[in-house]
Protein backbone atom coordinates (compact mmCIF):
# COMPACT_ATOMS: atom_id res chain seq x y z
CA UNK A 1 0.00 0.00 0.00
CA UNK A 2 1.42 3.34 -0.95
CA UNK A 3 1.42 6.06 1.65
CA UNK A 4 1.64 9.71 1.03
CA UNK A 5 2.49 11.86 4.02
CA UNK A 6 1.97 15.23 2.41
CA UNK A 7 -0.97 16.57 0.51
CA UNK A 8 -4.64 16.93 1.30
CA UNK A 9 -6.66 14.37 3.27
CA UNK A 10 -8.64 13.45 0.19
CA UNK A 11 -6.94 13.75 -3.19
CA UNK A 12 -8.86 13.03 -6.36
CA UNK A 13 -6.66 13.11 -9.47
CA UNK A 14 -8.05 12.93 -13.00
CA UNK A 15 -10.79 10.43 -12.12
CA UNK A 16 -12.94 9.21 -15.02
CA UNK A 17 -15.66 6.62 -15.14
CA UNK A 18 -17.97 5.21 -17.76
CA UNK A 19 -21.24 3.27 -17.57
CA UNK A 20 -20.98 1.44 -20.87
CA UNK A 21 -20.54 4.15 -23.50
CA UNK A 22 -21.75 6.91 -21.22
CA UNK A 23 -19.01 8.87 -19.50
CA UNK A 24 -20.29 9.80 -16.03
CA UNK A 25 -17.09 11.25 -14.58
CA UNK A 26 -14.66 13.20 -16.71
CA UNK A 27 -11.18 13.85 -15.29
CA UNK A 28 -12.34 15.00 -11.87
CA UNK A 29 -9.60 16.58 -9.78
CA UNK A 30 -10.32 17.77 -6.26
CA UNK A 31 -8.50 18.18 -2.95
CA UNK A 32 -10.27 18.09 0.40
CA UNK A 33 -8.10 19.11 3.38
CA UNK A 34 -8.79 17.56 6.77
CA UNK A 35 -11.72 19.12 8.71
CA UNK A 36 -13.06 20.69 5.56
CA UNK A 37 -16.57 20.41 4.16
CA UNK A 38 -16.97 20.26 0.41
CA UNK A 39 -20.41 20.46 -1.21
CA UNK A 40 -21.06 19.03 -4.64
CA UNK A 41 -23.93 20.71 -6.45
CA UNK A 42 -25.33 20.16 -9.91
CA UNK A 43 -28.26 18.68 -11.74
CA UNK A 44 -29.31 15.05 -11.35
CA UNK A 45 -27.06 12.87 -13.46
CA UNK A 46 -24.14 15.29 -13.27
CA UNK A 47 -22.01 12.69 -11.47
CA UNK A 48 -22.23 13.80 -7.82
CA UNK A 49 -23.45 10.46 -6.47
CA UNK A 50 -21.12 8.45 -8.66
CA UNK A 51 -18.14 10.44 -7.39
CA UNK A 52 -19.14 9.75 -3.78
CA UNK A 53 -19.66 6.07 -4.52
CA UNK A 54 -16.21 5.91 -6.12
CA UNK A 55 -14.71 7.39 -2.94
CA UNK A 56 -16.20 4.45 -1.02
CA UNK A 57 -15.26 1.93 -3.73
CA UNK A 58 -18.91 1.06 -4.26
CA UNK A 59 -18.06 1.94 -7.87
CA UNK A 60 -14.83 1.13 -9.66
CA UNK A 61 -12.73 4.03 -10.87
CA UNK A 62 -11.55 3.35 -14.42
CA UNK A 63 -9.04 6.12 -14.77
CA UNK A 64 -7.18 8.39 -12.40
CA UNK A 65 -6.27 8.12 -8.75
CA UNK A 66 -7.91 8.66 -5.38
CA UNK A 67 -5.92 8.96 -2.15
CA UNK A 68 -7.62 9.12 1.24
CA UNK A 69 -5.59 9.61 4.41
CA UNK A 70 -2.41 8.65 2.58
CA UNK A 71 -3.93 5.42 1.27
CA UNK A 72 -4.36 4.97 -2.45
CA UNK A 73 -7.87 3.62 -3.11
CA UNK A 74 -7.23 3.05 -6.77
CA UNK A 75 -4.71 0.32 -6.03
CA UNK A 76 -5.31 -3.32 -6.85
CA UNK A 77 -4.20 -4.56 -3.45
CA UNK A 78 -6.21 -2.14 -1.34
CA UNK A 79 -8.21 -3.74 1.49
CA UNK A 80 -11.67 -2.40 0.65
CA UNK A 81 -13.23 -3.49 3.92
CA UNK A 82 -10.51 -1.83 5.96
CA UNK A 83 -10.79 1.32 3.91
CA UNK A 84 -14.56 1.54 4.16
CA UNK A 85 -14.33 1.38 7.94
CA UNK A 86 -12.63 4.78 7.78
CA UNK A 87 -15.08 6.28 5.31
CA UNK A 88 -18.74 6.56 6.24
CA UNK A 89 -21.40 7.05 3.59
CA UNK A 90 -25.06 7.95 4.03
CA UNK A 91 -27.52 7.45 1.19
CA UNK A 92 -30.57 9.32 0.02
CA UNK A 93 -32.83 6.33 0.86
CA UNK A 94 -31.33 5.80 4.39
CA UNK A 95 -31.00 2.03 3.75
CA UNK A 96 -31.45 1.03 7.37
CA UNK A 97 -31.65 -2.73 7.88
CA UNK A 98 -35.42 -3.33 8.29
CA UNK A 99 -35.05 -6.63 10.16
CA UNK A 100 -32.98 -5.08 12.95
CA UNK A 101 -33.88 -2.62 15.69
CA UNK A 102 -32.42 0.87 15.64
CA UNK A 103 -29.82 -0.14 18.22
CA UNK A 104 -28.87 -3.29 16.29
CA UNK A 105 -28.50 -1.21 13.13
CA UNK A 106 -25.98 1.03 14.87
CA UNK A 107 -24.15 -1.84 16.60
CA UNK A 108 -23.81 -4.27 13.68
CA UNK A 109 -20.77 -2.87 11.88
CA UNK A 110 -18.70 -2.07 15.01
CA UNK A 111 -19.33 -5.59 16.28
CA UNK A 112 -18.77 -7.53 13.06
CA UNK A 113 -16.37 -5.35 11.08
CA UNK A 114 -14.30 -4.08 14.01
CA UNK A 115 -14.85 -7.12 16.21
CA UNK A 116 -15.60 -5.20 19.40
CA UNK A 117 -17.78 -6.77 22.08
CA UNK A 118 -21.53 -6.35 22.32
CA UNK A 119 -21.23 -4.25 25.49
CA UNK A 120 -18.61 -2.01 23.97
CA UNK A 121 -20.67 -1.59 20.80
CA UNK A 122 -23.71 -0.66 22.89
CA UNK A 123 -21.63 1.84 24.87
CA UNK A 124 -20.76 3.40 21.55
CA UNK A 125 -24.26 3.28 20.10
CA UNK A 126 -26.39 4.60 22.98
CA UNK A 127 -24.70 8.01 23.33
CA UNK A 128 -25.00 8.46 19.57
CA UNK A 129 -28.73 7.75 19.72
CA UNK A 130 -29.03 10.11 22.69
CA UNK A 131 -27.27 12.78 20.68
CA UNK A 132 -29.98 12.60 18.01
CA UNK A 133 -32.73 12.37 20.63
CA UNK A 134 -33.74 8.84 19.67
CA UNK A 135 -32.52 6.76 22.59
CA UNK A 136 -36.14 5.97 23.42
CA UNK A 137 -36.46 4.38 19.97
CA UNK A 138 -33.42 2.12 20.43
CA UNK A 139 -35.52 -1.06 20.42
CA UNK A 140 -37.96 0.04 17.71
CA UNK A 141 -37.74 -1.22 14.15
CA UNK A 142 -36.94 1.33 11.43
CA UNK A 143 -40.46 1.25 9.93
CA UNK A 144 -41.79 2.82 13.15
CA UNK A 145 -39.64 5.92 12.58
CA UNK A 146 -40.24 8.96 10.40
CA UNK A 147 -38.00 9.51 7.39
CA UNK A 148 -36.04 12.20 9.20
CA UNK A 149 -35.51 9.94 12.21
CA UNK A 150 -34.41 7.08 9.97
CA UNK A 151 -31.94 9.31 8.19
CA UNK A 152 -30.46 10.50 11.49
CA UNK A 153 -30.09 6.88 12.59
CA UNK A 154 -28.35 6.15 9.28
CA UNK A 155 -25.91 8.99 10.00
CA UNK A 156 -25.05 7.77 13.50
CA UNK A 157 -24.83 4.20 12.18
CA UNK A 158 -22.00 5.47 9.99
CA UNK A 159 -20.55 7.51 12.87
CA UNK A 160 -20.43 4.44 15.11
CA UNK A 161 -17.51 3.24 12.98
CA UNK A 162 -15.70 6.46 13.98
CA UNK A 163 -14.86 7.32 10.39
CA UNK A 164 -12.33 9.94 9.37
CA UNK A 165 -14.38 11.00 6.37
CA UNK A 166 -18.13 11.19 5.85
CA UNK A 167 -19.79 11.11 2.45
CA UNK A 168 -23.39 12.31 2.38
CA UNK A 169 -25.29 11.55 -0.80
CA UNK A 170 -28.34 13.84 -1.07
CA UNK A 171 -29.42 12.77 2.36
CA UNK A 172 -32.39 15.15 2.56
CA UNK A 173 -33.77 14.62 -0.95
CA UNK A 174 -36.24 11.92 0.07
CA UNK A 175 -37.53 13.80 3.11
CA UNK A 176 -40.61 15.93 3.64
CA UNK A 177 -39.54 19.58 4.01
CA UNK A 178 -40.47 19.73 7.70
CA UNK A 179 -38.20 16.75 8.43
CA UNK A 180 -35.15 18.24 6.73
CA UNK A 181 -34.23 20.64 9.52
CA UNK A 182 -33.25 18.05 12.13
CA UNK A 183 -31.09 16.16 9.69
CA UNK A 184 -29.30 19.30 8.57
CA UNK A 185 -28.78 20.34 12.20
CA UNK A 186 -26.96 17.06 12.82
CA UNK A 187 -24.76 17.61 9.77
CA UNK A 188 -24.06 21.16 10.93
CA UNK A 189 -22.92 19.83 14.30
CA UNK A 190 -20.68 17.33 12.56
CA UNK A 191 -19.12 20.08 10.51
CA UNK A 192 -18.54 22.14 13.64
CA UNK A 193 -16.89 19.18 15.35
CA UNK A 194 -14.32 19.15 12.54
CA UNK A 195 -15.49 16.10 10.59
CA UNK A 196 -14.13 16.00 7.05
CA UNK A 197 -17.16 15.73 4.79
CA UNK A 198 -18.13 15.63 1.16
CA UNK A 199 -21.82 16.29 0.51
CA UNK A 200 -23.85 15.98 -2.62
CA UNK A 201 -26.80 18.26 -1.99
CA UNK A 202 -29.68 20.22 -3.45
CA UNK A 203 -29.98 22.39 -0.33
CA UNK A 204 -28.24 25.50 -1.63
CA UNK A 205 -28.78 27.55 1.51
CA UNK A 206 -27.25 24.83 3.61
CA UNK A 207 -24.31 24.37 1.23
CA UNK A 208 -23.62 28.07 1.45
CA UNK A 209 -23.67 27.91 5.23
CA UNK A 210 -21.51 24.85 5.98
CA UNK A 211 -19.22 24.45 2.97
CA UNK A 212 -15.61 25.51 2.85
CA UNK A 213 -15.73 24.87 -0.85
CA UNK A 214 -18.52 24.33 -3.37
CA UNK A 215 -18.04 22.40 -6.60
CA UNK A 216 -20.51 22.67 -9.45
CA UNK A 217 -20.63 19.45 -11.46
CA UNK A 218 -21.88 19.43 -15.00
CA UNK A 219 -21.87 16.36 -17.25
CA UNK A 220 -19.24 14.61 -15.13
CA UNK A 221 -16.89 17.60 -14.91
CA UNK A 222 -16.23 20.04 -12.11
CA UNK A 223 -17.02 23.06 -14.21
CA UNK A 224 -16.60 25.56 -11.39
CA UNK A 225 -15.32 25.47 -7.82
CA UNK A 226 -14.69 28.04 -5.15
CA UNK A 227 -15.76 29.38 -1.76
CA UNK A 228 -19.55 29.38 -1.35
CA UNK A 229 -19.88 33.18 -1.38
CA UNK A 230 -18.25 33.34 -4.78
CA UNK A 231 -20.16 30.41 -6.32
CA UNK A 232 -23.55 31.54 -5.10
CA UNK A 233 -23.13 35.34 -5.42
CA UNK A 234 -20.84 35.64 -8.33
CA UNK A 235 -20.64 32.48 -10.43
CA UNK A 236 -18.19 32.79 -13.31
CA UNK A 237 -19.45 30.02 -15.57
CA UNK A 238 -22.69 30.58 -17.54
CA UNK A 239 -23.72 26.94 -16.81
CA UNK A 240 -23.40 27.55 -13.07
CA UNK A 241 -25.44 30.72 -13.32
CA UNK A 242 -28.11 28.92 -15.33
CA UNK A 243 -28.27 26.05 -12.83
CA UNK A 244 -28.47 28.32 -9.80
CA UNK A 245 -31.18 30.53 -11.26
CA UNK A 246 -33.24 27.43 -12.09
CA UNK A 247 -32.87 26.10 -8.56
CA UNK A 248 -33.76 29.47 -7.09
CA UNK A 249 -36.84 29.67 -9.26
CA UNK A 250 -37.90 26.18 -8.21
CA UNK A 251 -37.50 27.16 -4.55
CA UNK A 252 -39.72 30.21 -5.08
CA UNK A 253 -42.41 28.04 -6.62
CA UNK A 254 -42.25 25.50 -3.80
Amino acid at each position, binding site marked *: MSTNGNGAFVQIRGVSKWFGDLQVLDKITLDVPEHNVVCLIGASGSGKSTLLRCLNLLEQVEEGEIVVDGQRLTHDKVDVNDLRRKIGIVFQAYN*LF*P*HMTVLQNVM*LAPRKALGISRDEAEERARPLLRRIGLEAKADAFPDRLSGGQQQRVAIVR*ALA*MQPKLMLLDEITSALDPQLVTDVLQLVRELAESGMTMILATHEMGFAREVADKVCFLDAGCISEEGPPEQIFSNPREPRTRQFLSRVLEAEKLA
Partner: protein
Amino acid sequence: MHAFHQVIHAFFNPHSYTLAMPDVWSGFQLNLRMMAIAEVLVLVLALGIAILRGLPGPAARPLRALAIAYADFFRGTPIIIVAFLVGFGLPGLQLGYISSRSVTTYGVIALTLVYTAYVTEVYRAGIESVHPSQRAAARSLGLSYMQAMRYVVVPQAVRRVIPPLLNDFIGLQKDTAIVSVIGVAEAAQSAGQFSNRNGDFPSYVVAAVFFILITIPLARFTDHLVMKRERLERAQAF
Protein backbone atom coordinates in the same frame (compact mmCIF):
# COMPACT_ATOMS: atom_id res chain seq x y z
CA MET B 1 -75.28 -52.92 -7.29
CA HIS B 2 -73.23 -55.91 -6.37
CA ALA B 3 -70.03 -54.50 -7.78
CA PHE B 4 -70.61 -51.24 -5.90
CA HIS B 5 -70.99 -53.07 -2.62
CA GLN B 6 -67.83 -54.95 -3.36
CA VAL B 7 -65.90 -51.74 -3.88
CA ILE B 8 -67.35 -50.20 -0.73
CA HIS B 9 -66.44 -53.26 1.21
CA ALA B 10 -62.96 -53.48 -0.29
CA PHE B 11 -62.17 -49.90 0.77
CA PHE B 12 -64.20 -49.33 3.88
CA ASN B 13 -64.38 -52.60 5.72
CA PRO B 14 -64.04 -51.36 9.33
CA HIS B 15 -62.40 -54.56 10.47
CA SER B 16 -59.54 -54.11 8.01
CA TYR B 17 -58.85 -50.63 9.37
CA THR B 18 -58.16 -51.93 12.82
CA LEU B 19 -55.89 -54.56 11.35
CA ALA B 20 -54.04 -52.23 8.97
CA MET B 21 -53.45 -49.41 11.43
CA PRO B 22 -50.42 -50.79 13.33
CA ASP B 23 -48.59 -51.91 10.16
CA VAL B 24 -49.10 -48.63 8.35
CA TRP B 25 -48.29 -46.60 11.45
CA SER B 26 -44.97 -48.34 11.92
CA GLY B 27 -44.18 -47.65 8.26
CA PHE B 28 -45.28 -44.04 8.61
CA GLN B 29 -42.80 -43.46 11.42
CA LEU B 30 -40.12 -44.06 8.83
CA ASN B 31 -41.71 -41.40 6.60
CA LEU B 32 -41.66 -38.97 9.49
CA ARG B 33 -38.00 -39.67 10.18
CA MET B 34 -37.05 -39.31 6.50
CA MET B 35 -38.99 -36.03 6.26
CA ALA B 36 -37.34 -34.55 9.31
CA ILE B 37 -33.79 -35.46 8.28
CA ALA B 38 -34.24 -34.52 4.62
CA GLU B 39 -35.86 -31.17 5.50
CA VAL B 40 -32.99 -30.14 7.74
CA LEU B 41 -30.41 -31.22 5.15
CA VAL B 42 -32.29 -29.43 2.36
CA LEU B 43 -32.55 -26.17 4.35
CA VAL B 44 -28.80 -26.08 4.95
CA LEU B 45 -27.49 -27.40 1.62
CA ALA B 46 -29.85 -25.33 -0.53
CA LEU B 47 -28.81 -22.12 1.23
CA GLY B 48 -25.16 -22.98 0.66
CA ILE B 49 -25.71 -23.66 -3.04
CA ALA B 50 -27.86 -20.52 -3.46
CA ILE B 51 -25.03 -18.44 -2.00
CA LEU B 52 -22.46 -20.15 -4.25
CA ARG B 53 -24.63 -19.40 -7.24
CA GLY B 54 -24.77 -15.72 -6.33
CA LEU B 55 -21.01 -15.27 -5.78
CA PRO B 56 -19.67 -12.35 -7.81
CA GLY B 57 -16.59 -12.17 -9.98
CA PRO B 58 -14.87 -14.32 -12.58
CA ALA B 59 -13.02 -16.43 -9.98
CA ALA B 60 -16.32 -17.93 -8.82
CA ARG B 61 -17.46 -18.88 -12.32
CA PRO B 62 -16.74 -22.64 -11.94
CA LEU B 63 -18.68 -22.71 -8.67
CA ARG B 64 -21.61 -20.89 -10.23
CA ALA B 65 -21.57 -23.27 -13.20
CA LEU B 66 -21.51 -26.27 -10.86
CA ALA B 67 -24.46 -24.92 -8.89
CA ILE B 68 -26.44 -24.36 -12.10
CA ALA B 69 -25.61 -27.85 -13.44
CA TYR B 70 -26.73 -29.35 -10.15
CA ALA B 71 -30.08 -27.56 -10.18
CA ASP B 72 -30.66 -28.39 -13.86
CA PHE B 73 -29.94 -32.08 -13.38
CA PHE B 74 -31.97 -32.70 -10.26
CA ARG B 75 -34.92 -30.55 -11.21
CA GLY B 76 -35.05 -32.24 -14.59
CA THR B 77 -34.88 -35.82 -13.35
CA PRO B 78 -38.03 -37.51 -11.97
CA ILE B 79 -37.57 -38.29 -8.30
CA ILE B 80 -38.34 -41.98 -8.87
CA ILE B 81 -35.32 -42.21 -11.19
CA VAL B 82 -33.11 -40.38 -8.73
CA ALA B 83 -34.27 -42.89 -6.11
CA PHE B 84 -33.26 -45.79 -8.38
CA LEU B 85 -29.92 -44.16 -9.24
CA VAL B 86 -29.06 -43.59 -5.59
CA GLY B 87 -30.64 -46.71 -4.10
CA PHE B 88 -29.23 -49.18 -6.62
CA GLY B 89 -26.32 -47.14 -7.98
CA LEU B 90 -24.45 -46.25 -4.80
CA PRO B 91 -24.35 -49.84 -3.43
CA GLY B 92 -23.30 -51.06 -6.87
CA LEU B 93 -20.29 -48.75 -6.87
CA GLN B 94 -18.79 -50.72 -3.96
CA LEU B 95 -17.30 -47.65 -2.35
CA GLY B 96 -17.10 -48.97 1.21
CA TYR B 97 -18.94 -46.64 3.57
CA ILE B 98 -21.26 -44.95 1.07
CA SER B 99 -22.12 -48.27 -0.60
CA SER B 100 -23.17 -50.01 2.59
CA ARG B 101 -25.87 -47.69 3.95
CA SER B 102 -29.47 -48.72 4.57
CA VAL B 103 -32.19 -48.22 1.95
CA THR B 104 -33.72 -45.59 4.23
CA THR B 105 -30.49 -43.58 4.08
CA TYR B 106 -30.48 -43.83 0.29
CA GLY B 107 -34.09 -42.69 0.33
CA VAL B 108 -33.15 -39.63 2.38
CA ILE B 109 -30.23 -38.93 0.03
CA ALA B 110 -32.49 -39.09 -3.03
CA LEU B 111 -35.08 -36.78 -1.46
CA THR B 112 -32.39 -34.37 -0.33
CA LEU B 113 -30.74 -34.24 -3.76
CA VAL B 114 -33.98 -33.43 -5.55
CA TYR B 115 -35.49 -31.01 -3.07
CA THR B 116 -32.22 -29.16 -2.52
CA ALA B 117 -32.35 -28.30 -6.23
CA TYR B 118 -35.86 -26.83 -5.84
CA VAL B 119 -35.23 -25.01 -2.59
CA THR B 120 -31.98 -23.52 -3.97
CA GLU B 121 -34.12 -21.69 -6.51
CA VAL B 122 -36.49 -20.53 -3.78
CA TYR B 123 -33.60 -19.12 -1.71
CA ARG B 124 -32.08 -17.54 -4.79
CA ALA B 125 -35.31 -15.72 -5.60
CA GLY B 126 -35.39 -14.50 -2.00
CA ILE B 127 -31.79 -13.29 -2.05
CA GLU B 128 -32.39 -11.45 -5.32
CA SER B 129 -35.52 -9.81 -3.95
CA VAL B 130 -33.47 -7.98 -1.30
CA HIS B 131 -32.73 -4.55 -2.77
CA PRO B 132 -29.06 -4.08 -3.80
CA SER B 133 -28.95 -0.92 -1.68
CA GLN B 134 -29.13 -3.11 1.42
CA ARG B 135 -25.94 -4.89 0.43
CA ALA B 136 -24.34 -1.57 -0.54
CA ALA B 137 -25.20 -0.15 2.88
CA ALA B 138 -23.70 -3.18 4.63
CA ARG B 139 -20.55 -3.17 2.51
CA SER B 140 -20.12 0.59 2.91
CA LEU B 141 -19.95 0.06 6.68
CA GLY B 142 -16.94 -2.20 6.19
CA LEU B 143 -18.66 -5.58 6.39
CA SER B 144 -17.18 -8.23 4.09
CA TYR B 145 -19.25 -9.84 1.31
CA MET B 146 -20.02 -12.88 3.45
CA GLN B 147 -20.81 -10.76 6.52
CA ALA B 148 -23.21 -8.65 4.45
CA MET B 149 -24.88 -11.85 3.24
CA ARG B 150 -25.04 -13.41 6.67
CA TYR B 151 -26.30 -10.47 8.72
CA VAL B 152 -28.19 -8.35 6.21
CA VAL B 153 -29.22 -10.14 3.01
CA VAL B 154 -29.94 -13.74 4.02
CA PRO B 155 -32.07 -12.94 7.12
CA GLN B 156 -34.33 -10.73 5.00
CA ALA B 157 -34.38 -13.24 2.13
CA VAL B 158 -35.31 -16.19 4.35
CA ARG B 159 -38.21 -14.30 5.92
CA ARG B 160 -39.64 -13.61 2.49
CA VAL B 161 -39.37 -17.17 1.18
CA ILE B 162 -40.79 -19.08 4.15
CA PRO B 163 -44.19 -19.65 2.47
CA PRO B 164 -42.82 -21.08 -0.83
CA LEU B 165 -40.28 -23.04 1.21
CA LEU B 166 -43.04 -24.68 3.24
CA ASN B 167 -44.88 -25.46 0.01
CA ASP B 168 -41.86 -27.40 -1.20
CA PHE B 169 -41.76 -29.22 2.12
CA ILE B 170 -45.35 -30.35 1.63
CA GLY B 171 -44.16 -31.90 -1.63
CA LEU B 172 -41.18 -33.48 0.07
CA GLN B 173 -43.34 -35.02 2.79
CA LYS B 174 -45.51 -36.77 0.22
CA ASP B 175 -42.56 -37.84 -1.89
CA THR B 176 -41.16 -39.84 1.01
CA ALA B 177 -43.65 -42.45 -0.26
CA ILE B 178 -41.89 -42.62 -3.63
CA VAL B 179 -38.68 -43.99 -2.17
CA SER B 180 -40.56 -47.17 -1.32
CA VAL B 181 -39.50 -48.21 -4.84
CA ILE B 182 -36.00 -48.97 -3.58
CA GLY B 183 -37.38 -51.08 -0.75
CA VAL B 184 -37.87 -48.62 2.09
CA ALA B 185 -40.53 -50.13 4.35
CA GLU B 186 -42.41 -46.84 4.78
CA ALA B 187 -46.17 -46.32 4.98
CA ALA B 188 -47.05 -46.76 1.30
CA GLN B 189 -45.01 -49.93 1.11
CA SER B 190 -46.53 -51.32 4.33
CA ALA B 191 -49.99 -50.46 3.04
CA GLY B 192 -49.26 -52.29 -0.21
CA GLN B 193 -48.08 -55.40 1.57
CA PHE B 194 -51.09 -55.38 3.85
CA SER B 195 -53.40 -54.94 0.88
CA ASN B 196 -51.80 -57.90 -0.93
CA ARG B 197 -52.20 -60.12 2.10
CA ASN B 198 -55.79 -59.09 2.86
CA GLY B 199 -57.12 -58.57 -0.63
CA ASP B 200 -58.64 -55.15 0.21
CA PHE B 201 -57.57 -51.50 0.30
CA PRO B 202 -58.26 -49.86 3.68
CA SER B 203 -54.54 -49.89 4.38
CA TYR B 204 -54.10 -47.34 1.55
CA VAL B 205 -56.81 -45.15 3.01
CA VAL B 206 -55.08 -45.29 6.38
CA ALA B 207 -51.78 -44.26 4.77
CA ALA B 208 -53.52 -41.41 2.92
CA VAL B 209 -55.05 -40.15 6.16
CA PHE B 210 -51.66 -40.12 7.87
CA PHE B 211 -50.15 -38.05 5.08
CA ILE B 212 -53.10 -35.66 5.02
CA LEU B 213 -53.00 -35.22 8.77
CA ILE B 214 -49.44 -33.94 8.75
CA THR B 215 -49.89 -31.87 5.57
CA ILE B 216 -52.96 -29.91 6.70
CA PRO B 217 -51.28 -28.11 9.62
CA LEU B 218 -48.33 -27.19 7.42
CA ALA B 219 -50.63 -25.94 4.65
CA ARG B 220 -52.69 -23.85 7.09
CA PHE B 221 -49.53 -22.46 8.66
CA THR B 222 -48.26 -21.47 5.20
CA ASP B 223 -51.60 -19.76 4.41
CA HIS B 224 -51.37 -17.93 7.71
CA LEU B 225 -47.87 -16.64 6.92
CA VAL B 226 -48.90 -15.53 3.43
CA MET B 227 -51.90 -13.65 4.83
CA LYS B 228 -49.84 -12.04 7.55
CA ARG B 229 -47.32 -10.85 4.96
CA GLU B 230 -50.08 -9.47 2.72
CA ARG B 231 -51.63 -7.59 5.61
CA LEU B 232 -48.24 -6.13 6.45
CA GLU B 233 -47.63 -5.05 2.88
CA ARG B 234 -51.08 -3.47 2.64
CA ALA B 235 -50.43 -1.62 5.87
CA GLN B 236 -47.13 -0.32 4.52
CA ALA B 237 -48.75 0.85 1.31
CA PHE B 238 -50.74 3.44 3.27
